[in-house]
């Protein structure tokens, strides 16, 4: 049967003698407004951060002479560096947790039931809270983790502890919980996509060749889900490293200062746009570096890109 006949034109018979630019048509009129938004808002915004990082300002005016003093200040400030470092570790912890939980969750759902319908219900039901927004969810955790919160009260009532656990709330712990909770979906969906794409027969084949359950798991399932894990990891890391809402609400005095809050304070409170911008650029650099390392790992060990 002729392939091309069956796929009568994908373009549905459009324009005549189209204008060509480098051999291809111009983007259709349809998307010019959106392109305009990207070109005239998104790009300049990103560039603005870069620009401001090389300027100086006081409360009144901006000095546009090129200078790297903002970077020097930031990089020579031990407090800033400590916070940056802590944020990175924190983000890595969140990413690791989210990925692990998401991965095992997907596997668990698949093992719990064979019904596609039930599986979809479970996955969707976990996705719904995602739509509530970080704020509402953070609020919920305040109630869960506080001294008078659900966890403490339950533990107290059942006699497991005699005094409420203090560090549940207003600590790195609570911020960690909240961020993982908020980013879980971003890890789960890519992993789910990759996992469902795995041909079951590959796992059977592995067992057929003599590998036991664990072996199959490590050597077949994980590598095949790696593209999803990779994407999930990127998404979670990026969000967690730049989070400001959860640290503010749940961080208490310990954990409220993360890289993101330094930037937002600089922008909103000190009005030190250049300072904030420089810190933002440094953060971007770190994110890019982290993603690069992650990509290298994914490619070397699991050939995520060469598939």
């Amino acid at each position, binding site marked *: 049967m002729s392939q091309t006949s069956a*796929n*009568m*034109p994908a*373009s*549905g*018979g*459009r324009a005549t003698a189209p204008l060509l630019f480098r051999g*291809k*048509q111009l*983007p*259709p009129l349809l*998307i010019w*407004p*959106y*392109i305009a*938004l*990207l070109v005239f808002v*998104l790009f300049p*915004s990103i560039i603005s*951060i870069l*620009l401001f990082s090389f300027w100086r300002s006081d409360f009144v005016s901006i000095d546009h002479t090129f200078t790297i003093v903002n970077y020097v200040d930031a990089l020579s400030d031990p407090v800033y560096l400590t916070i940056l470092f802590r944020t990175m570790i924190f983000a890595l912890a969140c990413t690791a947790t989210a990925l692990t*939980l998401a991965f095992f*969750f997907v*596997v*668990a*759902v698949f*093992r*719990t039931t064979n019904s596609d319908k039930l599986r979809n219900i*479970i996955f*969707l*039901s*976990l996705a*719904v*809270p995602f739509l*509530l927004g*970080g*704020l*509402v*969810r953070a*609020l*919920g955790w305040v109630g*869960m983790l506080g001294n*008078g*919160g*659900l966890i403490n*009260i339950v533990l107290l009532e059942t006699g497991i502890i005699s005094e409420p656990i203090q560090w549940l709330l207003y600590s790195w712990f609570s911020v960690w919980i909240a961020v993982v*909770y908020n980013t879980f979906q971003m890890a789960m969906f890519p992993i789910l996509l990759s996992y469902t794409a795995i041909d079951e027969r590959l796992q059977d084949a592995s067992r057929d060749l003599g590998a036991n*359950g664990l072996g199959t798991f490590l050597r077949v399932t994980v590598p095949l889900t790696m593209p999803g894990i990779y994407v999930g990891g990127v998404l979670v890391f*990026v969000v967690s490293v730049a*989070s400001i809402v959860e640290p*503010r609400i749940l961080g208490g005095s310990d954990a409220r200062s993360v890289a993101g809050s330094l*930037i*937002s304070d600089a*922008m909103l409170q000190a009005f030190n*746009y250049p300072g*904030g*911008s420089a810190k*933002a650029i440094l953060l*971007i650099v770190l*994110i890019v570096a982290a993603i690069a390392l992650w990509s290298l790992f994914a490619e070397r060990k699991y050939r995520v890109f060469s598939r």
Partner: protein
Amino acid sequence: MRLRANYFSALFVAFMVIVTYAPIILVAALSFNDFPYFVVNIRGFTTKWYFDIAARTDLLDAIKISVTLGLCTAALATTFGAAMAYALVRRDFVFKKYITFSAAIPLLMPLLLLGIGIQLFMSLLGVGPGWWPLLAGHVLYTTPFTLLFMLTRILGLDPSLEAAARDLGANTVQTFAWVILPNIVWSLFGSFMLAFLLSFNELTLALFLAGPRQTLPLVIYAMMKVGIPPALLAFTTLMIVSTMLVAIGITATLAKIKR
């Protein structure tokens, strides 16, 4: 071996579901608790906190703003997302890869940075934070989602239908209105609701870009910094319930699409 694994898995799944819904249910439960603090100290059932809401004009004003913003964002994001999805699937054009990547940037870029960027850019233009910068930010943030949503639908749309329409003499407008639109209506709907929810509940961009007209999350955030009044719990519960309803609506449209 299989059986044990299944029980363990089921347990884990149950655990995750419980953990996911616990904070939300807690908020809802305590909103009916006759105790003015956000702690588990059950005193009795009351709905008085809900009536408190009526007095909080700041919340009520903020709702109006968030709803309007949400509707505008959703309208624009759905249109852009659908247009982009169609162009990606049906046409090949110059810079296609770059444009696609740019459309995805807001997904990869932390909202913090997007917010600062737009704020800085606006300041260069001499524009302060306000409705338009926030709208731009929200549209940039939500369009990748609507794009993905519509992409799935348009990929499943038979291209020969459009060819047939043109073949019979329909021009572009007619082809769109009579052939394409009827077949993507439900997805547009779902996209719209998704974008609306995302915009309605969004805080980070609003921190930087909202002007004098504060959105709902901003007002709640400000409240929370001081303490958590029980009226807030009641209000949040209402937000949760309405979001759930919209989410069910989206799921229903998803089901309709599959048919």
